[in-house]
């Protein structure tokens, strides 16, 4: 009978996060987690975001009262930075990390903006001889989006700018014949490698990051990002 067959339901973002972890694990990425309440150092400074950068303004970032120099992380790139720093110290290069976690932005909410959401962030570095390049970035993300959005999905690069990557690339993925902006990415900026204790003349690699909620909204046609955090079981349809 229906009643007995009814299984407990999982949150759509958990389903998607597991699929994403699975896809990246198969390509050699190691799962990484990190703190949500993060130091300004790992959230901004390490990533070559200058002290006067507009992103540090009050309106974008949640700052912690009575705890100078701490923020709610605005991206999981902080986790990537912590991981490559650690891997470098432990002599574990080449290495690749994938992190899916909650991030925060202090902005007015609407159907496509929420103060908390999930981000997928990844990094892959190796020696100059390993030569981890933009071609590798494209290969990895193309396979990822095929897993997430279907075999007919493609990715393309468009020029962009981020303080922590050079060159910087915007990733667009094709879904049902339409190009959609999915991620920011690029080769890690030498300053980021230096800040993580690595030697940019010896190490190179890429990093990428983008919203998980956005993939869920595109993949399943979920109309409003705020539905994810209401605790409403009507969301658990998959």
């Amino acid at each position: 009978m229906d009643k007995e067959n009814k299984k407990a339901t999982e949150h759509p973002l958990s389903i998607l996060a597991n699929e994403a972890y699975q896809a990246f694990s198969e390509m050699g990425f190691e799962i990484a987690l990190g703190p949500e309440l993060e130091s300004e150092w790992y959230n901004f400074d390490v990533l070559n975001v200058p002290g006067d950068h507009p992103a540090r303004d009050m309106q974008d970032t949640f700052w912690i009262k009575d705890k100078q120099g701490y923020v709610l992380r605005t991206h999981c790139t902080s986790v990537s930075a912590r991981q490559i720093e650690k891997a470098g110290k432990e002599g574990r290069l080449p290495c690749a990390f994938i992190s899916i976690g909650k991030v925060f932005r202090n902005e007015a909410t609407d159907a496509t903006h929420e103060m908390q959401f999930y981000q997928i962030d990844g990094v892959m570095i190796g020696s100059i001889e390993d030569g981890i390049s933009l071609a590798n970035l494209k290969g990895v993300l193309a396979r990822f989006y095929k897993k997430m959005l279907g075999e007919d999905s493609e990715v393309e690069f468009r020029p962009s700018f981020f303080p922590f990557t050079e060159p910087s690339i915007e990733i667009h993925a094709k879904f049902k014949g339409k190009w959609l902006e999915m991620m920011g990415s690029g080769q890690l900026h030498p300053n980021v490698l230096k800040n993580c204790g690595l030697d940019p003349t010896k190490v190179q690699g890429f990093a990428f990051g983008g919203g998980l909620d956005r993939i869920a909204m595109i993949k399943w046609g979920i109309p409003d990002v705020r539905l994810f955090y209401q605790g409403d079981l009507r969301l658990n349809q998959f």
Partner: protein
Amino acid sequence: MKISYNWLKWYIPEVPEPDKLADIFTYHIAEVEGVEKKEDDTIFDINILPNRAHDLLSHQGIARELASLLNIKYVDSAPEYKIPASVKALAGKSELKIDIQSDKCRRYMGRIIRNVKVGSSPEWVVKHLESIGQRSINNLVDAANILMYDCGQPAHVFDLDKVEGGLVIRNAKIGEKMTTLDNRDLELSGQDLLVADFKMALGLAGIKGGKIAEVTAETKNVIIEIANFDPIVTRKSAVRANIFTDARKRFENDLSPELGPYAMRELSALIFEMCPEAIFEDIVDVYPHKQGIRKLSFSADKISKILGLKVSVKEIEDILKRYNFQYKENKGKFEILPPPMRLDLEIEEDMAEEIGRILGYDKVKGEIPEINFKPKINETYKNITFARNKLLSLGYNEVMTYTFSDKGEIELKNSASDKKFLRTNLSDGLRESIKLNQLNAQFLGMNEIKVFEIGTIFKKGKEELHVAYGDKKEVKEMSLAEYTKSAGSFLNGLAGVGDPENRGPEKMTLPMKFQMWSLFPFIARDIAVFAPEGIKSVDVAEVIKENMGNMVTRGPELFDEFKKGGKTSYAFRLIFQSYDRTLTDAEVGDIMTKITNKIKENSGWEVR
């Protein structure tokens, strides 16, 4: 930045058609936010990237970029300017005095122009300004604006006769007051940079002019300003004063002071065209902080390694020539002198980006690296997966709630919402969730609501991953570590995702579509049918389906079944709900009556 196609065409007559141009912007330069057809013109709204704001926030900048990118002709307008003859200060009048007292002003060029006639602008000026959404004000102000949108250099015009003595570029005194051109009263801080005369503030440097020396219809003599200010000081000052202007945007992104002489010549020529009777005095150029010559070295090999694309020396040389970069090449190693405006080009990686985007990133072919990474298992993630699977197997449904709360131990300094604390537990959110879902229990087809959340909580001095689960009677919460310890008898040997040795079956979700629920209330109705032997539940469900209309969002769902005296009782539940209105009991009652009557038409069927 709004860019007029016709304006571009002045400089690059061979510019491709607008449709094609949009793709060129997208794949080689920056995102096109909008394309608007306007009479005989097309206006592009281009989101210039911060690292190109030094040189691309202007029509000439874009035209130069396109000319080099596409290898088409660039028509330099400078030789066509009518250059006014310049004179020393008139007899009995003193020369323009410029005193830079702050190192945040890198260059200040000023020029006195006498005998100007303030009036309306020539038609082409009005048209150009209107095409990019700007309003014509008067010929002198328009000339300064045309200059900025044309070559990227902001300019300002002061009424000379309202200026006391000369110009001083200095920090404001704490509490000093100024009224802007648009009549806003500012109270300044010691960090604000001012353009002042010997007495008063004439303008917030690089951001907004002041009321005192405003050009009006009566103005006869002016000072034109072509200056260069420090980006950080400009930004901080503008944020404090909450002023957004196109001049601010350009200075806060850092402009090259080397643009000054060109801009001074263009602005003078524009004013000369509008006021042929004007007398131009000699340019006064104070340039204490000269922009240095920058050298940049890179190799074809390194560029190829970064891009993952073999780029030849010849391809690079071709690009450097098209972009007019001075360079030396030796065995694939290049040394270049980037043009002064290209402040974005500092390191080898910058050139990888430059060459990559010019060649087109579609040339970079995807390739999964063949490297044997040795990933370790993430224990925390393994525990999260264990806890989730365990709770799901016990019939708990997963939810996510907000990290923000109206009480807690960690407070936010700033928040767009009224919840200014971080949660200290998951239980409070979970209880709200249970309450909400209880209302929809019938819709969800659940007899009791059981939910769980795995998430981070924040206490003074630490954040911790917690697990909470429960129903309307009780909610339990503990740390993830405690949960896995207490429930972990079968944890040993459980492989998590990410375990390279044991990846487990691939789980792929079906390509399903999300069904948004109705925001109107639902009505649940049950119907129990006694049917003779041989009649299956699907037979009864079929009759219900045929007669239930199109307002059923869930069901018929069999929730009870038993046999008695050779007959079987089937109990179904129907959830009625509309997407555009609240249903009434009466209309649902009518549908149920119709179903009941149809069922009774079958011999031996009985509605209990």
